[in-house]
């Protein structure tokens, strides 16, 4: 079973895991993801591969505690094993030289966005990044993104770092400044991607989003991950996870993501009632 080599707390409830998965490390391309389950009774959740080191044979996952599965992962340490790590899944990002590409990330969306930025840059694009978070303590990977040498704008909701306000405002200004933008890649919570698409729609700037619906098998077998893109229902695990944001029905996505909210709550309560409580509070 795949072993966790290192973990690191990046921000409150946001962790980096470096996991031994030599084959996936060699094969993965920007935009792809893995399905992970922490234990044999676990639920399988999709996590985008944020980085990989083929020499070490490892992949990097960045995970925010959101439900029971991620809370359980938070208890794991270097040396522990994950039951399932399946991948790389999904279509890789279409990387071509377009000119000026703007990456927009909200929260941990920068984790999946990072490899795309790297690849876009290698393909000869000028890359700008707008990175937003609730407040400075939630801002992750700033150092790594800076190291790419891209044009970086930071935003926080409370102004504790960078400019105060949402990523959409920064993007709007960039568009208004008259810079040519050939593509926007937006990754983050569904609501943020939805608003980014509203900003780019009037000027018809091609906008790619990476969707994260609930998944089961990740091979196109169940259709649980279906999303509405234009007139078509697409399976995010095999047709995506990236789609033309201007065609995506985000409201439906958000509803489907919340489909098991009640069961999630039950599972969390049950989990918290066990002796994990103290450790969770310590986070």
């Amino acid at each position, binding site marked *: 079973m795949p072993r966790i080599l290192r973990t690191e707390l990046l921000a409150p409830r946001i962790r980096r895991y470096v996991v031994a998965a030599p*084959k*996936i490390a060699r*094969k993965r391309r920007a935009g792809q993801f893995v399905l992970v*389950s922490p234990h044999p*009774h*676990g*639920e*399988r959740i999709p996590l985008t591969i944020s980085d990989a080191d083929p020499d070490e044979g490892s992949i990097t996952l960045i995970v925010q505690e959101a439900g*029971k*599965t991620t809370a359980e992962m938070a208890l794991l340490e270097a040396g522990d094993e994950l*039951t*399932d*790590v*399946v*991948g*790389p*899944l999904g279509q890789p990002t279409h990387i071509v030289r377009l000119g000026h590409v703007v990456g927009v990330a909200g929260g941990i969306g920068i984790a999946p966005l990072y490899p795309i930025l790297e690849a876009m840059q290698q393909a000869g694009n000028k890359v700008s990044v707008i990175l937003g978070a609730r407040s400075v303590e939630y801002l992750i990977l700033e150092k790594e993104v800076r190291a790419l040498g891209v044009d970086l704008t930071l935003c926080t909701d409370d102004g504790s770092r960078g400019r105060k306000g949402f990523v959409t405002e920064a993007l709007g200004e960039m568009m208004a400044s008259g810079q040519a933008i050939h593509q926007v890649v937006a990754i983050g919570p569904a609501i943020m991607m939805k608003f980014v698409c509203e900003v780019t729609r009037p000027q018809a700037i091609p906008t790619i989003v990476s969707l994260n619906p609930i998944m*089961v*098998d*990740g*091979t*196109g*077998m*169940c*259709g*649980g991950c*279906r999303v*509405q893109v234009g007139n078509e*229902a697409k399976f995010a695990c*095999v047709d995506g996870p990236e789609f033309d944001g201007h065609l995506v029905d985000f409201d*439906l996505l958000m*509803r*489907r993501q919340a*489909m*098991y909210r009640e*069961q*999630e709550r*039950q*599972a969390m309560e*049950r989990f918290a009632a066990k002796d994990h409580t103290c450790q969770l509070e310590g986070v």
Partner: protein
Amino acid sequence: MTQPTPPPKRTAKEKIGTPRPPMREQPPLERARNFLEVPFGYGPEQAMVEAERCLACGKPHCMEGCPVGNDIPTFLRQIAEGNFAGAARTMKETNLLPAICGRVCPQETQCEALCVIGKRGEPIAIGRLERFIGDWERESGAVEVPECAAPTGRKVAIIGSGPAGLTCAADVARAGHRVVVYEALQKPGGVLRYGIPEFRLPKAIIDAELTLLERMGVEIRCNEVIGMTDTIDELLVEEGYDAVFVATGAGLPWFLGIPGENALGVYSANEFLTRTNLMGAWRFPEYDTPVQRLNVVATIGGGNVAMDAARTALRLGAERSLIVYRRGLDELPARAEEVHHAQEEGVEFHLLTNPVEILSDARTGWVQALRCQRMELGEPDASGRRRPSPVPDSEFDLALGTVIIAIGNAPNPLIPRTTPDLDVSRKGQIVVDQESMKSSKRGVFAGGDIVRGAATVILAMGDGRRAAASINEYLESGKW
């Protein structure tokens, strides 16, 4: 185990006139709320008495009905004589998994349909006897690990661990080749694991078969999606496999294409059954994967998959479980036993009913009702089934909270998509030579649902067998 004494011999007339011994079952209302297997199976005495009814025809028709040509009369004679070990051996010459086939084959349209006794009485209960032998062998610890030839140094990759893949694995391993089975999901078994529920096919049976394969030296690697983790070309070139058998099944669910299908509470049968069977949602919250449990559940479709979903819904606590099917009772493609069991358990059949729209709550997005129209049957179409057509102005709504779509599956496209020189039909099936199971690509064979479209367990097993023979021949001769 003490052998029971063989039953007294009867005349042909007596044999024809005697019905099959009934098979004990869990009472319908009790079992509709648990996941334990429904029928208990024959005991040794019942099995011998039933097998003795066989007339030992000179030209056994039953065998013609069996897609893999099981030697049914010999097997029946051995059971009647109390020679269960012999019967098991006879069966396994053509059918590696009798405990499974006895439970899931549509016998009433195959072997039993052609049994001559059926013309005047009840046909021999071949399926039940097959199950009996498979169970007897497993439970009495009599299972023999098939002998494998000395290692040849050749390596074969099998993709998919459903009935086609597992059967092929056994026969290739027997020839001394090293076999690795790749499975995308976290547990092997294919549809037998994720689709067919525990109450119809206990997973302990599949586990026993898998243990046997492992004792034969077959390695099973789960969580590897071929096409993604490795492509077929990489298996052949980089990983050094001498041949590949593709048995990836028909795992791409069809949806209806009617409005409202993305509403919350609408599942494909694959998702509903996978969550329940494979991910253990029936034991939520002990297992983490949830599945919605709502009062009224409608399953759309009339095949085995639909029956499994509708019966599973009851077991998950649904107050009402409905089958919505656009043709009539006689056209239901499911095994007769499954329809019968579903009816007994209280599944409601809404026949000649065609769904046209799924209505949901505008605020929450949850399913509220299924809009249907009534159908009537016209003349038989090319397939011999009577074609349904809508009755004008007959729309009505069924109020419900969950909809399960079980109208069929297309072949999984992952392998064809990532293997450029593999010929695929318009419907997405891998094209093979029916005898040798060879595909258009050298060293690559295919069988089961990926070749046939959604078919049956026994056909998949038959393909696995033929492919194995052909792979063994290819590895021997090197000729394509």
